C-alpha cells in the first residue's frame, strides 16, 4: 500500500488537529491509552473527517457539515450542571435513578451512586479506568467498525464518562437515566461502558441536556450483555441542535441474553446514530429499533451492523423515518451471518414516509450471508402519505392537519410499540406529537 497522500485539511479538520495538540496533555489515560489517542488523532490528520467518498458515510458527509472545530467544553461545576438539569425535561415524573455526565466527565455529586450501589450497581469514573492497568481495553473497537471516523474522534478526545457494572443476577428496580449535560457551548466527548453481568436485568435511558452550540457531541455507549442478562436501552435525542450529534453503540451479547435498543432522533441539524452489535453466545436475541424525524435541511442517519458470529441467534431491526421539508434521511443496515452461524433468524425492515416535496431518503439494507441454514429477510419502503388513508379519516370529519398527525403518529408508533418498553412508550409518543406540532 502506498502511504496515504496528505490531504488538504478543511477548516474543521485543521481545527481538530490543533485542538488535539492543545488538549493532549490534559486528557486522561495511561501510556497505552495516550498511544491510542495519538493513533486516532493521526488517523484524523491523515484521512480527515469522514466524507461521501467513504462508503459508510456516503450519504452522511461529516466533512462537508462541520465548518469548524469548537473547543472541548470546559469542566463544569455541579451547580452549573444542576441548573441545566433543572430546566431539562426528559421523562417527567418517571421514577428513575440518574447518572450525570457533565461536559463529558462524570459528576458523582449529581448521580445516585449510593442508591444504585444498594441495588447492586457500581458506578465509577471512566477516567479512573483509563488511568488504570487495563485502560486501553476500555477504548477497544470491534473489527467490524473498521477505521470509523466517529470512533476515532471519540478515542482521540474522550473527556470521560462512566463505567456502570450491574452485578450477577441483579434486577434493578428502576430504570437508570444516563444524562449527558452540556454547560455552556463546546464539544462534548464521552464514552461509557455498561456491563450487565450474568442473569442481571437493566434498563437504561440515555438523554442529552443543554446546548453544545456549534460543538459536536460524540458519545460512545459500550455494552457488555453477559450470559442470561437483559438490557434495554433507549436513546432519546430530541430538540433542535446546531452541532453534529454522533452516537455510537458497541454491543456484545452473550448466550441466552436479550438486548433491546431504540434510537430516537428528532431535531438536530446533523445526527448519526451508528451501532455495531455482535453476538458472542448462542440462543440470544437482539431487537434494534429506530424512530427518526427530520425537517428543514437537517440530516438524520441510522446506521447499524449486526454480526451473527454464532449460531442460533435472532435479531430484529425495525426503523421508521419521517422526513419533512428538504430533510435527508439515511438508513444503512447490514446483517452479517458468519460461516457456521446456522439457524440465524434476522429480520430487517426500514420504512420512510416523505412529507416534504424536497425530502430525500437513502435506504441501504444489506445482507451478508455465509451460512446456508438461516432465515434472513430485509425490506425497505419509501413513499408519501397514503391518500386513501387520509381521505378515510377526513371523510369521518377529522380535519386534515389532525388526520396527518394521526397517520404519522401511527406510522412511528409501530416501532415504539414493538420496542414494548412501557416506561418509555408514553414519553416517546409525546415527543413525536411535540415534533409534529413544532
Amino acid at each position, binding site marked *: 500500500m502506498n502511504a496515504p497522500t496528505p490531504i488538504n485539511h478543511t477548516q474543521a479538520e485543521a481545527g481538530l488537529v490543533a485542538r488535539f495538540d492543545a488538549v493532549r496533555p490534559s486528557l486522561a489515560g495511561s501510556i497505552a491509552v495516550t498511544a491510542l489517542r495519538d493513533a486516532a488523532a493521526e488517523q484524523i490528520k491523515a484521512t480527515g473527517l469522514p466524507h461521501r467518498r467513504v462508503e459508510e458515510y456516503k450519504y452522511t458527509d461529516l466533512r462537508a457539515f462541520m465548518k469548524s472545530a469548537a473547543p472541548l467544553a470546559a469542566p463544569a461545576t455541579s451547580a452549573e450542571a444542576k441548573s441545566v438539569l433543572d430546566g431539562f425535561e426528559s421523562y417527567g415524573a418517571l421514577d428513575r435513578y440518574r447518572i450525570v455526565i457533565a461536559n463529558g466527565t462524570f459528576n458523582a455529586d449529581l448521580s445516585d451512586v449510593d442508591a444504585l450501589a444498594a441495588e447492586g450497581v457500581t458506578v465509577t469514573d471512566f477516567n479512573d479506568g483509563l488511568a488504570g492497568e487495563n485502560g486501553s481495553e476500555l477504548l477497544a473497537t470491534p473489527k467490524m467498525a473498521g477505521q470509523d471516523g466517529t470512533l476515532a474522534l471519540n478515542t482521540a478526545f474522550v473527556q470521560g464518562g462512566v463505567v456502570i457494572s450491574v452485578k450477577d443476577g441483579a434486577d434493578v428496580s428502576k430504570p437508570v437515566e444516563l444524562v449527558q449535560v452540556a454547560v455552556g457551548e463546546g464539544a462534548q466527548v464521552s464514552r461509557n461502558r455498561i456491563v450487565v453481568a450474568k442473569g442481571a436485568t437493566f434498563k437504561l435511558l440515555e438523554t442529552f441536556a443543554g446546548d453544545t452550540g456549534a460543538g459536536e457531541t460524540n458519545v460512545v455507549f459500550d455494552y457488555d450483555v453477559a450470559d442470561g442478562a437483559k438490557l434495554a436501552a433507549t436513546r432519546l435525542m430530541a430538540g433542535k441542535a446546531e452541532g453534529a450529534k454522533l452516537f455510537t453503540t458497541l454491543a456484545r451479547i452473550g448466550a441466552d441474553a436479550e438486548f433491546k435498543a431504540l434510537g430516537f432522533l428528532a431535531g438536530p441539524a446533523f445526527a448519526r446514530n451508528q451501532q455495531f452489535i455482535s453476538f458472542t453466545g448462542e440462543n440470544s436475541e437482539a431487537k434494534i429499533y429506530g424512530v427518526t424525524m427530520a425537517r428543514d435541511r437537517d440530516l438524520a442517519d441510522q446506521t447499524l451492523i449486526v454480526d451473527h458470529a454464532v449460531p442460533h441467534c435472532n435479531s430484529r431491526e425495525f426503523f421508521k423515518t419521517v422526513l419533512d421539508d428538504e430533510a435527508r434521511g439515511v438508513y444503512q443496515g447490514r446483517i452479517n451471518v458468519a460461516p457456521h452461524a446456522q439457524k440465524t433468524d434476522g429480520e430487517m425492515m426500514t420504512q420512510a414516509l416523505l412529507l416534504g416535496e424536497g425530502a430525500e*431518503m437513502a435506504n441501504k439494507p444489506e445482507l451478508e450471508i455465509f451460512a446456508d441454514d438461516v432465515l434472513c429477510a430485509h425490506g425497505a419502503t*419509501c413513499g408519501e402519505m397514503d391518500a386513501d388513508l387520509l381521505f378515510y379519516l377526513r371523510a369521518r370529519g377529522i380535519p386534515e392537519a389532525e388526520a396527518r398527525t394521526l397517520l404519522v403518529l401511527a406510522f412511528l408508533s409501530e416501532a415504539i410499540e414493538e420496542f414494548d418498553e412501557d416506561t418509555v412508550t408514553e414519553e416517546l409518543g409525546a415527543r413525536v406529537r411535540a415534533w409534529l406540532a413544532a
Partner: protein
Amino acid sequence: MPAVQETIDQVKAIDVDQYKYGFVTDIDSEKGAKGLSEETVRFLSAKKDEPEWMTEWRLDALRRFRTMEEPDWARVDYPKIDFDALYYWAAPKSVEGPKSLDEVDPELLATYEKLGIPLREQEILAGVEPKNRVAVDAVFDSVSVVTTFKEELKKAGVIFCSISEALREYPDLVKKYLGSVVPVTDNYYATLNSAVFSDGSFVYIPEGVRCPMELSTYFRINEQNTGQFERTLIIADKGSYVSYLEGCTAPQRDENQLHAAVVELVALDDAEIKYSTVQNWFPGDSQGKGGIYNFVTKRGDCRGKNSKIAWTQVETGSAITWKYPSCILRGDNSVGEFYSIAVSNGYQQIDSGTKMIHLGKNTSSRIISKGISAGRSSNTYRGLVSAHKKASHTRNFTQCDSLLIGQECGAHTVPYIESKNASAVFEHEATTSKISDDQMFYCLQRGMNEEEAVALIVNGFVKDVIQQLPMEFAVEAQKLISISLEGSVG
C-alpha cells in the same frame, strides 16, 4: 431453511465440472495486436476499415483509460490483469467477408452446430414455425462470422449486422448513438472497450416496425490469451419493438480470459426492447482454475416517452461476473424491468445487479433477482434504485432472493435505494411472505399454501419473459426456473 434435495440436484447438474461447451475448435486463425497500445488501436481500426473519426474516438478512449484506476469496490477477488499480455485481435482466417453461408468455413458451422446454434436458414425454415425463427449474428473471437436472415430483415427495414459493417454502411446512425448511453469514460472496462472493441451487433428498428423475428447474437471465445471486447448497439425508433437474445460460451482453458463488453440500448418514444442473456462462459474448473472474467457494462436508455426496456439474464458461467444491466428511465411513463437468475458454483464469483434511474415522471421499474450459490462461490446482488427530484409518481418494486447450498459459499445483498421525490413509491423486499398482500390473499384463498403462492407469483414474473426465449437458449433457464423458493434467505 436448508435447500431442498431437488434444488441441490438441479444446481449440481450445471456445476462447473459439467461444462459442456469447453471444447476448442481447431481452426486456422489470425492473431494480432498483442499488448495495449496506440498501435493496437490503429491496427484494429485499420483492420476494420473504419472512418477517421472512429479511430480518433478509440484513441481518445485509450488516453482516458490510461488515467483511470481499476475499480475495487465489487465483492470479487482476482489477480491483476496484465493488459499487455493480451491479444486484442483474433479471427478465423477464412472469415474475410463471406457473402453467403456456403462460403463460411465448415469448421465454424460445425462449431456452432455443436453449440446448438442454427446458422443455416433453411434448416430453421424446415423445422420450426416461422414466427419462432431467430436471426443470428455469430461472433467468433474478434469478428462476426455470419449474420443470418439479413435480407428478410431488410425488407422490414430492420438493420441487423455486425457493428463493423454498420460503421461502414451506416456511419451516421452509429455516430449519433454510439457512446450516448455508456459514455467513453463511463468506467474502467467500458473505457477499455471503447478503445479496443472488435466486433458485436448493431440493430436499428425503424419507426413503427415490430421486428418480424427474434434477433440474437452468439459470442464464442476460442483463441488463447485473447480478450473479447464486443460492442452492441440497439436502437428502437419510435413505436418499434424488438426482442434480442445473447448467448456466450468459451473453451475450457487453464488461464483466465477477459471479456469486457459494452451494450447500449436506446428506446425512443413508445418503443420497446427486450434484451435477454444466457451467459454461459467457461466458469473455471472445480479447483477454480481458468474461466472467463466477465466485466460487462450494459445500459438501456428509455429516451422516449412510454418506452420500455426489459433485461432478462440467466447467469451460470464465468469465473468472475461483474455486470449491472441498467435502465435510465428518462422519458415520462417509461418502464424498466430486470429479471435475473444467477447461479454460482465452484469458485465462481458473481457481483451483479441492476440500476434503475428514474428521471422522468410516472416511470416505473421492477427488479426480480434470484441468486443461488453453491460450492465455494460468492454471489452478490448489488443494485441501485433512485428517483430524481423531478421524477414524480415513480414506482419501483424490487425483490431479491438468494439461496445457499453448502457451508462454504456466500450470498450478499447490497441494495441502494435513493428517493429524492416524495411521491416516489419504492418497495424493496426480500421476504418470501410479503409480495403483495392482495396477490397472496387471492392465492391462499384458492387453497394454495404460502410457498406455492409465492413461487407462483415470483415465477410468474420471470417465466413471462423466459418462456419467450428460443429453445436453444431456454434449456438452462427452464432448469433454473423450476428451482423452488424454499429456503430463501433474502
